């Protein structure tokens, strides 16, 4: 149907129209549309930017941010986390007199990226100055097709090297946020290094101790020890995890290489091993065969599944935002609340997180630079990291979380009644160190969906392994035009 699909026709989809991003501009000439005013503005802006860049090149090390030409900052995000942070910053710094215009578009309908891409490409006054990217697609904006929109942090007036060291930022988030030229263009404020979150009472029942260091040595390092522990648990009628998805994030995050090597699809042996891991867990009853983010998976957090589940893999946000509410209680003693502990996982990985970036065409780099520095690199007690870690952003008693800055975590209190009083930072700080960002590609979100689909089919006996791998390769080639 021509035009925007407003008038619905029988049965078709009217909402999620497919998207063809047209290239912006002058090549496809629409003479009357590209107004002379717009063009002149753009040229002037370019000249201003070049001039200021030239100036900053002469100031060594700590770059001098160019002068801001307006007082409006366009902030694009997919949750209200960053907008709320900016509000807090303005409270703390009344001299920050910029007006911040926020655009929030959730990622769940797949609408955030197209809108963001369009706004970045379109330029002009409505273009984003500060924008967020989630772990699932951040690589596109830091190293991939949209990387040319991102401004290096040092061009925002931030002394990157010094600050990174001072704040002791987890290396994986720096890796992800560094572009191909070696400049840092994005950083995450959370640390989403993963750990293993286990049930204390079950550990005591099977091995006699629930001490984190002890459990760490039981479930790892390495998958062999993990599955030996699974066998111990199975003998007593417990499942070690809820579904195969739980160990997938750990497997994926810890593989030496990513899905694309030398421009071809590559199945890392550790990831290929997941096929058999999944099948084995199903056959030996090591899990409840749930799919993550479904009813049954949540139910396992409060022992409502067919077997009691020993543990979950995840970063701090899994504990605070997902498990706490689903544990069947809100204080120790109710449901499984308070019966959990956290220990180091058999392999290092990270999962999720939000990176903040700046637009390198932005006319307000100074203001944006101040915000970014406060959010990601400020390790003082009035920096965002400190408030976020201690849950004091909106006043006391908020949800705690792990942050990118190791310095902040070391001086923050991460004790949680949910974990029986354990300080989660003790585990998550080292966990952050051993996560790596070098094995990700911008196609991961899609490739992972195809991979897990094939693994499901193989684990449930619907295909042979060779067939599953062949189908996986074909689907990736068909949909992403990646060489196999």
């Amino acid at each position, binding site marked *: 149907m*021509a035009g*925007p*699909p407003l008038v619905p026709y029988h049965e078709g989809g009217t909402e*999620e129209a*497919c998207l063809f991003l047209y290239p912006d501009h002058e090549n496809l000439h629409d003479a009357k549309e590209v107004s002379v005013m717009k063009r002149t503005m753009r040229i002037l802006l370019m000249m201003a930017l070049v001039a200021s860049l030239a100036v900053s090149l002469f100031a060594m090390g700590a770059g001098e941010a160019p002068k801001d030409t307006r007082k409006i900052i366009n902030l694009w995000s997919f949750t209200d986390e960053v907008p709320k942070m900016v509000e807090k910053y303005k409270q703390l710094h009344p001299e920050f007199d910029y007006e911040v215009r*926020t655009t929030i578009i959730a990622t769940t309908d797949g609408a955030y990226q*197209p809108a963001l891409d369009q706004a970045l490409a379109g330029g002009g006054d409505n273009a984003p100055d500060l924008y967020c990217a989630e772990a699932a697609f951040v690589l596109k904006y830091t190293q991939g097709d949209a990387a040319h929109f991102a401004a290096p942090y040092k061009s925002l007036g931030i002394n990157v090297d010094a600050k990174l060291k001072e704040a002791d930022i987890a290396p994986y988030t720096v890796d992800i946020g560094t572009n191909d030229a070696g400049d840092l263009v994005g950083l995450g404020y959370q640390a989403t290094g993963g750990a293993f979150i286990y049930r204390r009472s079950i550990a005591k029942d099977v091995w006699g101790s629930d001490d984190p260091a002890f459990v760490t040595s039981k479930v790892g390092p390495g998958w062999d020890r993990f599955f030996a522990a699974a066998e111990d648990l199975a003998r007593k009628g417990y499942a070690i995890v809820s579904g195969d998805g739980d160990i997938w994030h750990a497997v994926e995050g810890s593989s030496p290489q990513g899905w694309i090597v030398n421009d071809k699809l590559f199945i890392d042996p550790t990831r290929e091993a997941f096929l058999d891991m999944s099948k084995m867990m199903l056959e030996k009853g090591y899990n409840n065969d749930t799919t993550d983010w479904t009813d049954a998976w949540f139910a396992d957090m409060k022992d409502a599944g067919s077997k009691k589940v020993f543990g979950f893999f995840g970063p701090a946000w899994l504990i605070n935002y997902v498990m706490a509410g689903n544990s069947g209680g809100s204080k120790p003693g109710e449901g499984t609340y308070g019966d959990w502990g956290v220990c180091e996982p058999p392999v290092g990985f990270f999962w999720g997180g939000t990176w903040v970036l700046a637009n390198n065409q932005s006319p307000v780099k100074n203001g944006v630079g101040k915000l970014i520095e406060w959010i990601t690199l400020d390790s003082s007690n009035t920096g965002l990291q400190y408030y976020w870690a201690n849950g004091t952003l909106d006043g006391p008693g908020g949800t705690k979380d792990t942050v990118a800055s190791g310095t902040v975590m070391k001086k923050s209190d991460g004790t949680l009644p949910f974990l029986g009083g354990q300080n989660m930072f003790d585990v998550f700080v080292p966990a952050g160190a051993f996560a790596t960002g070098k094995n990700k590609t911008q196609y991961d979100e899609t490739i992972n969906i195809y991979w897990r689909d094939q693994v499901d089919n193989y684990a449930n006996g619907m295909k042979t392994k060779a067939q599953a791998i062949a189908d996986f390769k074909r689907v990736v080639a068909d949909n992403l035009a990646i060489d196999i």
Partner: protein
Amino acid sequence: MKSIKASTITMKTVIYIVCIFLSLLSIFPFWVMIMNATRSTYQIQQTSVALFPGKSLVNNWKILTGKSFNPWVGFVNSMIISTGTTICAVYFSSLTAYALVAYTWRLRNAFFSFIMAVLMIPAQVSGIGFYQFMYKIGWTNSLLPLILPAIAAPAMVFFMRQYLMATLSLDIVASARIDGSGEFRTFNQIILPIMKPAMATQAIFTFVGSWNNLFIPLILLTRQEKYTMPIMVSLLRGDIYKTEYGSVYLGLTLTVLPLFVIYFILSKYIIAGVALGALKE
């Protein structure tokens, strides 16, 4: 005599049973949606489908309004867009269909084929180019580009044409001409009333479709004061672990409520047991 009556009664029983079953089937998801609007996010995560209400209605409402969801603003914007779209689409489609049926002109069949061809273009093809075009000419954050394109609505033209072909007798037009009525007046005063059932049904469909439309408004309207209701509901979804499901369902329920009202208003045209045909001898 008796057997006819008996068979009618069995027939009617069958009809009632089937209709009641279908009605329950139709209400089911609405019921679940309303129930979920009263439960907390965690309860919903544990059991997505519940038949009984929970206790979190007030809490969900607080979260909803706390996230700068101003239902009133969303309602007004959605109302403007949907009403505008419906009026444009219905009126101009009827006009175009009338042109195709009442007059013989050389390009008539070609034009109809053209409209059908436009109808067959996959929606994806022009959707994106459209909003990209709007960005280029700077026509974002305005409700007009969401309303005006509805003037060209191929599916509706198709329907109106089929309807007119089946119900319109050209004698009426001829007699109106004899009475001295101009063509435009004939259309507005004589033809449109004949098309009431068709217009009512298409109006409902258009209104619903436009009201629920999320994607293009989401991309074109970035300022908060222009948000429509579906956009506001989508704001409630963040990362998968931060989505407040209870409030989302509450938002969805609020979004659907006005549709019920409009539907009940327009439905009497469909319920009418008497044909609204124009040829009464």
